């Protein structure tokens, strides 16, 4: 039995690695469609990374080992987190090892490493991007933690597997506090993944870029790994949101059919999420950087309100 479970853990890891570029491709496809452009193929991100893997790496002369290690560390951390969040099965052997607060910690560890590496070479853009990233991060993190606390107090656990199982046991139930923290989570997701109101993933405009400024010095396989890690981060955030707010469809083991159904459910949720995000990115404009504190302050506020409402309305 235990070997079987570990096998599923492995399968989920591989699935996450493959689904992440496809998710990116799907979001780009939807966005292009909504903006009346001709969409590129779903496989485009994967193709691009494969191309990058074949190219040579150009390193700055002053680059320290930190700069070279970062892409691997980043990819490793995010691949690990992708294995920790329940995507198809609620109970994974690794998900018992780390609860959701530690997961937030892992994500911020990845961010700190990348910011340090961006400052390492000493170019203006790198440190500019790193500072901006840390500005966004230090505002987004409390909001994310508040969202997590709201869900945790509702489900009386901080373990993702247990939270999902409790919500599944309870069945469909309208919680105002969950609605609030769901919106807050969406705002944090957009900010942390460098999507449109905070950062535009498509441009290299020096006035506005955050993430792209940090990885400007990277090339070849390093760049591919960082981009892949970034796609994994999106997938991790998405599945985290699914576990916290809509775990319905997750399988608790059982027969192979049930697991296959759960997998299909996960893909459908992913597709819907991609469309929703593309709509959101098409109708909204990028904000000025100095508006970001306001935006993330709003997310924090919503999450705190969620906790307060949970206290007031109770269960």
């Amino acid at each position, binding site marked *: 039995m235990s070997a079987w479970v570990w096998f599923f853990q492995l399968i989920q890891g591989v699935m996450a690695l493959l689904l992440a570029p496809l998710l990116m491709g799907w979001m780009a496809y939807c966005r292009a469609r909504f903006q009346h452009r001709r969409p590129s193929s779903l496989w485009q991100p994967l193709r691009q990374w494969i191309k990058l893997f074949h190219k040579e790496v150009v390193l700055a002369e002053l680059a320290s080992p930190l700069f070279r290690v970062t892409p691997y560390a980043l990819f490793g951390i995010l691949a690990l987190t992708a294995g920790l969040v329940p995507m198809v099965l609620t109970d994974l052997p690794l998900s018992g090892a780390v609860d959701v607060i530690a997961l937030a910690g892992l994500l911020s560890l990845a961010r700190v490493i990348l910011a340090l590496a961006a400052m390492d070479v000493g170019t203006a853009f790198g440190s500019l991007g790193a500072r901006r990233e840390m500005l966004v991060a230090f505002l987004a993190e409390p909001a994310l933690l508040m969202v997590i606390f709201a869900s945790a107090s509702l*489900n009386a656990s901080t373990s993702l597997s247990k939270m999902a199982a409790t919500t599944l046991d*309870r069945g469909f139930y309208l919680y*105002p506090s969950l609605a609030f923290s769901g919106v807050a989570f969406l705002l944090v997701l957009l900010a942390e993944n460098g999507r449109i109101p905070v950062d535009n993933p498509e441009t290299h405009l020096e006035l506005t870029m955050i993430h792209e400024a940090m990885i400007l010095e990277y090339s070849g396989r390093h760049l591919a790994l960082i981009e892949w890690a970034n796609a994994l981060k999106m997938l991790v955030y998405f599945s985290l949101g699914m576990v916290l707010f809509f775990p319905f469809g997750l399988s608790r083991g059982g027969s192979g059919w049930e697991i296959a159904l759960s997998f299909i459910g996960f893909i459908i949720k992913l597709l819907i999420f991609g469309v929703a995000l593309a709509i959101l990115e098409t109708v909204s404009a990028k904000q000025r950087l100095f508006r970001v504190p306001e935006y993330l*302050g709003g997310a924090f*506020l919503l999450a705190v309100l969620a906790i307060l409402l949970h*206290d*007031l309305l109770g*269960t």
Partner: protein
Amino acid sequence: MPHWNPVPFAQQLLDLFAALLLLIVFAMLSQRRILTLIHLFALQGMILALSIADSAWLTHQPHLYYSAALTLGLKGVILPGLLRRLIGRLGVVWDVETLINIPTTMLLGIVLVIFAFNLALPIAHFSHTILRNTLGIALASVLLSFMMMITRNKAVPQVIGFLAMENGLFFAATSATYGMPMVVELGVALDVLVGMFIFGIFFFQIRDTFDSLDTRKMDHLGRD
């Protein structure tokens, strides 16, 4: 396992509406544009009407349906329409107001919400209506609208704050006592409507006298 007792879906929906009302007041508090403010106000009226209709269904009180219809007509359609025409006439449709630091206002708002929730807790224990939990939310939205009136310095947002406060009070009345008698409700509705007309006349008076709708300029009334 957390203990939780299942409540009917209508009750869940009511809690959700109450929470949405609170959310809209916060959105109003952070909104700079007057037109968006009016849209938010219309949305607030509609959700208020929905929540009253829901509580009518939940408690089998048919007179609340009339109240809901009245709210929907007056606060969801007529008042926002009047306000929109007014700002069109005044030429302040795209007016953007400078506010005191929005995050600070938000944090103050959270403090107010905590205060209101704690205040409502002992009152809710005495009440036996099933809507008593929402009393805290109603109180919080009254306080927040009041704060909105204080922090704004243009006349139109202040009036919207006032109307939002009235919405909050109305919600408090429904959640604490299953609604007031029909005569009172009609009276209040009429008062609000008349008040709105008077405000409309005032706006023009203020603008003619001070060349602006900024109420801070009224401080210098005696000096000219």
